[in-house]
């Protein structure tokens, strides 16, 4: 019976010119967005790989110099593009594209792509994720607002129920009908998306990419199901089709455009992050005066000198069998690392608190839940960015430590005569980033995925319940 109802709904909808127009426009836009995304992320990926290689070549070919000068020149590393960024760029436009891994500084990523784009585009980005999150729910409203209401207005609802159709079957059948009509838009997009994924990921990462893709499909499925449920429930409970439509349009506008910004700004206000200036002033103060404010850097250096001389049993710095600069630089590096852990730790904890509030806002609007999951599974959320930033920072620390240790072995009193060249630069380990697995990403999405499941279930239950007690007038 459910299938027969679904078939009737589908036939009715697909014969409707409004549906054909909307499906054509939205489906077309989805394909355009996918195509643009594939082109963009291919060029970004190629550029990052090229620049990463160039950075290493520049490091190796920097000429002969003191290892500490080299540590200042150091390396840049470029953020690798996630395989699914073509569909969901997430934070990519809003995080810098490269980070300088130099001595003394845990730098922030520089050059946000959003800065080099026209501002007006931020009103609505043309990405597959935006089409799925914002426009498809509107299509659902269009498809479903009249599902019960128009039958009621025509008087066929009474007839159907009088013939013994179970209200549950009626609701589920109509839901299935809407889903089948949506499939006309979604199936081509999924095929194109899967094809783009195959092209974007190497064979090694393919399994991981497909797992992420499947979970993404599930998340969006739940998201769209929630809208189908809500729309059918509203259709069954409203007195008129017009009432159902206006109510649903208001719900849609609030859910996809208004409430997300409210939640984001509320999270920002509740858990503010410092300005760049304040952040670096605080870092500078801690480096100079000590993390507790009572251990100035010159006293730390003096203490280190005394300890080092004691270790080697000498009483003058000139008598040390090692270059004290290397030891002092590494000690200050180690101290700096603690300072950075404190400040970046606090900053990132605050960002994560904001993101938790944003994900929790999924209780109020499913969009916030699907947005969090979508970025998370695509590997383009803050957590993925942080994963890369931390890996790069670990590499920077090891890299600088190797250079300092080497400097300690070079004992000419003249700075510029303690040099190394090409072979030494080339002998250092390269940064090899291993992105987190699909499992790592998925386990972080328990909350938003759970909320989406709740919305989908709640929507369908509401639709069935509303169908049990439909208004007849």
């Amino acid at each position, binding site marked *: 019976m459910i299938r027969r109802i679904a078939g009737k709904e589908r036939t009715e909808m697909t014969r409707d010119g*409004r549906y054909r127009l909307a499906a054509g426009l939205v489906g077309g836009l989805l394909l355009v967005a996918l195509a*643009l995304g594939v082109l963009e992320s291919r060029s*970004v990926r190629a*550029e*990052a790989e*090229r*620049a990463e290689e160039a*950075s290493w070549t*520049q490091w190796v070919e*920097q*000429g002969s*110099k003191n290892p500490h000068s080299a540590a200042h*020149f150091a390396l840049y590393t*470029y953020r690798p593009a996630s395989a699914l960024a073509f569909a969901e760029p997430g*934070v990519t*436009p*809003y*995080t*810098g594209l*490269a980070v300088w891994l130099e001595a003394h500084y845990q*730098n*922030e990523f*520089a*050059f*946000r792509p*959003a*800065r*080099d*784009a*026209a*501002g*007006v*585009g*931020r*009103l*609505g*980005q*043309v990405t597959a994720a*935006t089409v799925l999150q914002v*426009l498809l729910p*509107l299509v659902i409203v*269009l498809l479903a607002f009249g599902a019960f209401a128009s039958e009621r207005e025509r008087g066929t609802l009474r007839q159907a129920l009088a013939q013994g159709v179970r209200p549950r079957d009626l609701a589920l059948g109509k839901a299935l009908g809407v889903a089948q009509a949506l499939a006309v838009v979604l199936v081509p997009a999924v095929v194109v998306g899967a094809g783009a994924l195959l092209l974007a990921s190497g064979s090694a990462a393919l399994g991981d990419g497909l797992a992420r893709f499947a979970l993404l499909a599930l998340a969006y499925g739940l998201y769209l199901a929630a809208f189908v449920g809500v729309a059918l429930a509203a259709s069954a409970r409203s007195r008129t089709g*017009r009432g159902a*439509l*206006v109510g649903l*349009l208001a719900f849609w*506008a609030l859910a996809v*455009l208004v409430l997300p910004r409210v*939640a*984001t*700004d509320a999270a920002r206000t509740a858990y503010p992050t410092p*300005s*760049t*200036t*304040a952040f670096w002033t605080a870092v500078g103060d801690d480096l100079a005066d000590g993390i507790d404010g009572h251990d100035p850097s010159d006293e730390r250096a003096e203490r280190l000198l005394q300890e080092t001389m004691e270790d080697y049993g000498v009483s003058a710095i000139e008598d040390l069998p090692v270059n004290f600069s290397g030891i002092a630089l590494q000690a200050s590096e180690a101290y700096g690392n603690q300072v950075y852990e404190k400040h970046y730790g606090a900053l990132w904890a*605050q*960002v994560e608190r*904001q993101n938790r509030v*944003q994900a929790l806002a999924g209780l109020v609007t499913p969009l916030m839940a699907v947005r969090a999951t979508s970025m998370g599974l695509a590997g383009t959320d*803050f957590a993925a960015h942080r994963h890369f930033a931390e890996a790069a920072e670990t590499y920077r620390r090891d890299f600088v430590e190797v250079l300092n240790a080497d400097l300690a072995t070079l004992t000419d009193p003249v700075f510029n005569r303690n040099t190394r060249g090409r072979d030494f630069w080339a002998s250092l380990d390269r940064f090899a980033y291993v992105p987190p697995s699909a499992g790592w990403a998925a386990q972080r999405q328990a909350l938003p995925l759970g909320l989406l499941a709740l919305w989908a279930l709640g929507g369908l239950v509401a639709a069935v319940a509303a169908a049990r007690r439909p208004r007849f007038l």
Partner: protein
Amino acid sequence: MIRTVLAHEWRLLRRAPATWIALALLAVSIVFGASNGGRWADFQHQTLAEAEAYEAETYGDLARRAAAPDGEWPDPSSAANIGMFYGRYATLPPGPLAPLAVGQSDVAPYALYVSGKTLASTHTKSAEELGNPQAYVTGRFDTAFALVVVLPLVLLVLLFDIASGERERETLGLVLSQPVRPGTLVWAKAGLRWALVAGVAWAASALGLALFGADLGAAPGGLALALLAVAAYAAVWTALAVWVATRGWPSATNALVLAAVWVAVVVVVPGLIGAASGALEPVPSRTHLIEAHREADTRFAARGGELLTAYYDANPGAQPADLDPMQYDFPLYYTARQGAMQDTLAPLLRRYDDALAAQERLANGLALLSPAALLQNTLAAVAGTDHARHAAYLRQVEDFHAAHRDFFAPRAYQRVALTASDYEAMPRFAFVEPGAVATRALWPLGGIAVLALTLAACAAPGLRRITTH
């Protein structure tokens, strides 16, 4: 007759809770938006104050020590050391109406630390704000968002059934049996709703901006432009709803058509404008800037002596008697090297600015396709968060960087000791507003007005055909 229609309409609207809910939603959105915009402007003011405090302390200390040398590092009289390892913040202060629109101000740098190092290095380090990238994805709820996105929604809720609603309630025949033309009736109903929404938007904007730190008195012209643009934008939607009303569709169809147009105008077309301008006028990847910087660094790394010699050859009499340019001197070599790198990199940096300006020009032209994009551009221009003002800032930063270098580098090369009075004379940055806001805001405003008139003209002929069935 029109007064009777208006009086009756007002009575009906006044008694409908939906009217008040919709208007309250709009007012609250606008004031909430102003609070968010105001918070962001306060944040920037705070940064500016922090930067100023840092400079006052740092240069105060140095100037005091220059007056009474104590032999401690750094030597405050060394032009090479002070010029290279100390800098000044070149800051872009938020405009008086900043809470109106955040615009691009949250992704573009506004407190650049300028020293004798290359201008490119200023842009690579700590130029951008920290903060939560995931929050940027959703965007800010500022006044501009309330006006561009929420206002048309509220207006359309009040307008979508002005004729069809009466037809469906079967009151249209009754009303048209009175001596009133259908056109007059529809325009009066629509005009009243337009005036209500525009009035609430004006009042809430003025109130919200005044409450959350905007200086309305400092920019009365800008405020007037913004309010005019809002009224014109509301007129666009009103005219559209009137045109839809002339088609004779049922209310449900009207609602669907208007919602579809709304999402197209507010979300889809601006997104497409962004994508198209990015594709047709791309800004080259900044990876090239990073690479060119490092390449220049390596190229000039071992050539300090050579660069110094060239300087002294070109500036006879500049070379101090006891200075051998080939004798390694880190601060001096560093000054020479950064200067040479700057000369190499300046054209490249400008190319990014030019590319961005071209992209913005194209996007501004394409904005004619969407009144939402036009209003966004007008509000950003009035708020001072548009591309043009930021581009002017970057040009001034470039000039300031040159002035800083012209002050320090010759003194370094000639080994002139900096005195307390030199500390007074050092160049400082003060942003100069680029031209009148009106020149930037007028043409998008004109675009909105033309759109409103065009739509109204399209709607007019159909009004006579409004019938009861």
